[in-house]
């Protein structure tokens, strides 16, 4: 299925000075960024950061307080047939429970003058051809998620938005959607995917846009994000470990106890640790450089921007803001 994708030149999504207020609460605060075609862009932020709100604003579902959004240079409302330009998976449950998946897709296809033969194609792409004639109310969350993806693909759009796409998917489904998003980007399309699962981003995204409390925190490649201002640590096992720790401390390293008698070393790289151990005749059993995980890097960046810590009122704004 993934290899049936036709190459399609993506279009950039340009967000410029975007502001969204709900009463006194600022959900999106002067946000500017560009989502480029050909790569998977991860859209990260803690709960309440404004990710879903931003996606709703891109789709014209919410109206911005100020600022501009353009898809390939055009406002969403000016797209002649939006489903042919932008496919979005925003809310998996957004289907009438008494309508079949197939009829749901038919209704959407007709609204954008898309041939209804395409419905069968997208049902096959997402692996729902067998259950397309069942009522959506009986679908599992994973099946609803797949139906949402099918709807997003109806117009074979160059731009795709996924809001927390792995929610409710089984492990097989998660691998599938990950490969699928990569294939879409590989075929030249623009892919923006939000997630609160940082580890998920590490395996999917090429570029990251990180927001917190509606503000842009980072807009950089995933490599740059990881290499940022984070110290590398090294996990060390040695015999005798006590001797090594005193040698390392003497060399100015900071030590922390690791799992199963191992030690986590900060301030010295693996080569220096190995050399020091050899000098002192200490047997090294393990020497593993550890990159700061995306999770840790993310928490570092967003520490000040987590809603719950600062103002409890922000977190309670509305249920749809993530």
């Amino acid at each position, binding site marked *: 299925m993934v290899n049936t994708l*036709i*190459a*399609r*030149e993506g279009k950039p999504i340009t967000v410029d000075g975007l502001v969204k207020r709900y009463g006194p609460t600022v959900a999106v605060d002067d946000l500017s960024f560009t989502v480029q075609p*050909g*790569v998977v862009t991860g859209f990260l932020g803690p709960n309440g950061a404004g990710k879903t709100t931003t996606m*709703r604003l891109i*789709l*014209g*579902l*919410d*109206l911005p307080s100020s600022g501009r959004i353009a898809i390939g240079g055009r406002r*969403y*409302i000016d*797209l*002649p*047939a*939006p*489903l*042919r330009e*932008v496919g*979005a998976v*925003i*809310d998996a*449950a*957004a*289907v*009438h*429970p*008494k*309508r*079949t998946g197939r*009829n*749901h897709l*038919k*209704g*959407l296809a*007709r*609204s*954008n*003058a898309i041939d209804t033969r395409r419905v069968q194609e997208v049902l096959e792409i997402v692996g729902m051809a067998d259950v397309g004639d069942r009522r959506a109310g009986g679908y599992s969350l994973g099946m609803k998620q797949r139906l949402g993806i099918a*709807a997003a693909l109806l117009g*074979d759009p*160059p731009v795709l938005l996924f809001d927390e796409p792995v929610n409710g998917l089984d492990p097989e489904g998660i691998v599938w959607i990950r490969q699928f998003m990569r294939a879409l*980007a*590989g*075929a*030249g399309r623009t892919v923006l995917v939000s997630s609160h699962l940082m580890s998920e981003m590490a395996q999917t995204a090429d570029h990251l846009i990180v927001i917190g409390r509606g503000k842009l925190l980072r807009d950089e490649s995933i490599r740059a994000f990881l290499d940022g201002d984070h110290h590398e640590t090294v996990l060390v096992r040695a015999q005798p470990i006590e001797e090594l720790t005193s040698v390392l401390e003497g060399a100015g390293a900071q030590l922390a106890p690791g799992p199963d008698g191992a030690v986590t070393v900060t301030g010295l790289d693996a080569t220096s640790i190995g050399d020091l151990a050899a000098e002192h005749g200490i047997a090294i059993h393990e020497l593993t450089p550890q990159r700061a995980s995306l999770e840790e890097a993310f928490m570092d960046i967003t520490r000040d921007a987590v809603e719950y810590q600062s103002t409890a009122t922000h977190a309670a704004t509305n249920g749809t803001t993530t």
Partner: protein
Amino acid sequence: MSTTVALPASSYRPARLTDTVRSEATKLSTIPSTTWALIATLIIGVGLSALLSAVTAHAWQIDTPRVRETWDPTAMSTSGGSIAQLALAVLGVLAVTSEYATGEIRSTLAATPHRGRVLAAKAAVVSLVAFVAGEIVMFTAYGIGQALIHGHAPTSSLSQPGVFRAVSGGGLYIIAIALLGVGFGTLLRGTAAAISTLVALLYVLPALAAALPGELGHAVQKYWPTQAGGQVTNVVHAAHTLGPWTGMADLTAFTMLVLAVAYWRLTRTDS
């Protein structure tokens, strides 16, 4: 990325209002509540009309001359429509509120960001369904009602002045009622709130207004939109009522007002 050959941006036909109408027709015809609303309309409209026609016709013999003077066999044989209209009003409400209840509205508005077009398409589809269902109910009820009244009280025929207008006018009246459903559904976004409002508008408030003293009561009775609109289904007109077409104009103006406010709410606020 890898070497992918980008095809030229594919050309396609822009979406038009007719596409939105087709989409809304597909949506309305693929949920069971539509079928139920239509079955309810038919059963209540025809069944209740038949029942009321039979009962009142049999009572005609013992009615006072004053009651006999206002005997309107046409209106009586289609009188179930006054309750059946609620089923089509609910159909109009659900065409909108079911989308808010399920979140489907977000799919709809993302596919068609011109929200006025969505409202217009829903209104068009609901109008057509209501009109066809309304006319079927009115003419069926009229035929059955006349047969039941025959031999017990004076009947009417479609060739008499005003009779065809009264029977077919029911289909026009019901368009307005179903559109009020669409309008209040869009305005209030909740099924219960919208249906309660329609029940109040159609039944509760006119009944209360009738209890108002003197001129005020008469004026409310005369101009109340749904009461005024209903005059189109009467052949014999009571005191303090508008004529059939001025009454329809009154109801139409009110419906347009509700739809205009609904349009404002739909286009000016977050979905």
